[in-house]
């Protein structure tokens, strides 16, 4: 049931993404409206799927009442659900339908790769994860990752717009996308909102580590990479806020920051470490 629902949610997300791309090239508000509806159904389906996952996860008494995000499948589906829900909320309020094409690929890729490569089986939590912190620390961090994913989409839109104007052959797209400076501001505002969440999440991880292993910070690859991500975005925020440096250079820095987010989430599992908890990968 859980898998069937997740697959259905994936289908809805993919359809919504297709509509978002159509909307990019054909001005018809119908596309945007249907995109939003499909997204809504997808979010509902995936929430239900996550509910089923929670149910089967809690059949193991030790897992009660922790979130099932200890495996790749669980983490990826939570992450894509968070991105989709955040986008649904933002889109529903601000109707920035045009940005759908830049944001929706993330939940589609996230849920898709979970369905294709990750093992959906639930298993018992290892003792170190049996702490209320598992409901806080990873959730807080993944929420910030979801926001950074959105900011990355905005950054992409900015580069597209920049290219449009630079080319001297602006297409329909140019008039549909928000202006360079607006996208620049949006990128900044999302990052400014998500960065405190990231850093507080890292500090919470330190508190958990102190309670579980007796050290606040241990330069484990995962925590180190989270710190690197925070440093890169801190550099971006300083460029923007203090240096008042905007434009492409700042966008590139924020994109490097997102690359670091992806590496923290996925790549670090190839470097051994204490955070190699995510199980059931390829």
């Amino acid at each position, binding site marked *: 049931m859980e898998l069937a629902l997740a697959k259905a949610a994936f289908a809805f997300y993919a359809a919504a993404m297709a509509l978002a791309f159509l909307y990019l090239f054909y001005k018809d508000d119908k596309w945007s409206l249907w995109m939003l509806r499909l997204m809504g159904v997808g979010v509902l389906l995936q929430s239900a799927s996550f509910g089923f996952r929670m149910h089967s996860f809690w059949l193991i008494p030790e897992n009660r009442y922790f979130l099932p995000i200890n495996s790749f499948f669980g983490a990826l589906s939570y992450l894509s659900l968070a991105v989709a829900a955040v986008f649904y909320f933002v889109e529903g309020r601000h109707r920035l339908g045009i940005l759908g094409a830049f944001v929706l690929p993330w939940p589609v890729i996230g849920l898709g790769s979970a369905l294709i490569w990750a093992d959906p089986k639930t298993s018992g939590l290892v003792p170190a994860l049996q702490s209320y912190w598992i409901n806080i620390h990873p959730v807080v961090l993944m929420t910030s990752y979801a926001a950074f994913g959105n900011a990355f989409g905005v950054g992409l839109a900015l580069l597209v717009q920049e290219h449009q104007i630079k080319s001297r052959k602006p297409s329909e797209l140019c008039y549909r996308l928000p202006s360079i400076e607006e996208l620049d501001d949006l990128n900044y505002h999302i990052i400014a909102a998500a960065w405190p969440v990231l850093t507080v999440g890292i500090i919470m991880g330190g508190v958990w580590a102190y309670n579980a292993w007796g050290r606040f910070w241990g*330069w484990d690859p995962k925590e*180190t990479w989270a710190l690197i991500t925070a*440093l890169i975005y801190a550099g971006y925020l300083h460029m923007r806020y203090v240096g008042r440096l905007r434009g492409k250079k700042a966008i590139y820095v924020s994109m490097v920051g997102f690359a670091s987010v992806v590496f923290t989430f996925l790549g670090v599992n190839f*470097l*051994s470490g204490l955070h190699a908890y995510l199980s059931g990968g390829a």
Partner: protein
Amino acid sequence: MLKYRNKMALFRSIRFNIYVGLAIAIAAAVGTLVPQTPESPANVETFQLHHPALSHFYHFLGFFDLYHSPWFMGLLALMAFDIVLCKLWNRPPDPDVVSLPPEETKEAEAEKHLSMKAEALRLKPLKAVLVAKTPYREAAAKAREMLRARGYHLREEFSLPQGSAFLATRHRPQRWGSYTTHIALVVILLGALIKGVWGFTEMIPVLEGSSRAVQNIPQWSVHVDHFRVRYYPGTMNPSSYESDVRLTDGGKLLAAKTIHVNDPLDYQGVRFYQASWGAGGMFRKVLLEIGGKAMELAQRRAEAIPGLPFRVEADMMLPDFTITPDGRPDTASLEPKNPAVRFAFFLGKNKTRALWLFMNFPKVCLVEDEDGRLSHAPPPPFRLAGIEPILFSGIQTAYDPGYKVVAAGGILWLCGTVLLFYLHRRRLWVLVEPRRKGSKEEMESSPIRLSVGGFGSRGPKAYAAEFDSIIRAFETELSGHAEIQESRNNIQEVV
């Protein structure tokens, strides 16, 4: 003093600090790619074996213990130093942010008065001027009341030659956000420094039923009376493990507790964590089944096999049996996932054979020759029926006097970032002028000219909508109309 400041200009420059942060980020990334001695000494040795020349270079740079190398510490210290310097001496980029020390300077005072002039107000990124019928004597109070109702905090009221003026603010604590955040970072680094100087961590593996001294406090001993591990049904994945721990000083009991993962024993700030566990090579007894009859064997004690001329001895156990590439027995981990026991058979005094038998694979038997190499043997007439291994409990012992400082820094960080990023500081300068000058009476009943300048910490665009609605409210409440309305949000996008 001025000269000294200039000398420090490099360290006060944001650009330089961004580079310092970048250097820390790159160094930290390198540390995750090169094996680290404190984490995995074995990997470091392997690396050194394969890349001798590179290792020499890495060793020189301190790459094998990068995070504790002097230069990395130096970078962190430099960052802390720069932050303190920047925050104490730099003029804040946003003129409305308090400077430290937070008393308002004379210049700031002068600027404030200057900014009340209508001309200066027009220089604000958000501004509006409107004329209204409300008599001068009521207008300022009415305007103040409206702003109060909108959640504004009314600060100062001045009487200027041309009229009266006041300042209104919202979310004023936002201006402390940047300081709090940066100070929090320094506090956290300070906590780490305290730990580095006075704190310690050590791993004490204690066999069940025995004790070991704490190296950093030699008079203390940790006893593990019982160690228990439980598995998820049908798997070899532990669901929990715990130790009954006693801490003694000489013969005196200091503390006792059953410790779990995430639930340590705390004695005078020294904490004992259940960090890991495993099986060494020790066991209490094994059960060997020969011809349907079981015999109990203690470790390294040869026993005669009833009815046979042989004696047998169980001399070694590997908890997670695996074969090395050159064909020797080894263990993949310390968890008893694939336990195997080596039995030596004696005929008289001569050792005849060494056989490996497995708990999980009763049909498999491996023969070990004198060089320690393995080869397959036909299924034996006996089988390994049970093992009672002696487990060790890995007890991480840590003393971190800096933790409270770090935790305080963390809370400060939370407050600082919330102030800085989630509050939206807004400031309105309002100047009310009578349109008719003359006698006092005439002025009091005169219609007014109201100039409003706005500042928002998130920039004019983010504040424009609210600013406009305030101006519209002024228009309706004071029965006026905008003379110049140059706020930013009232232009429609072109289709």
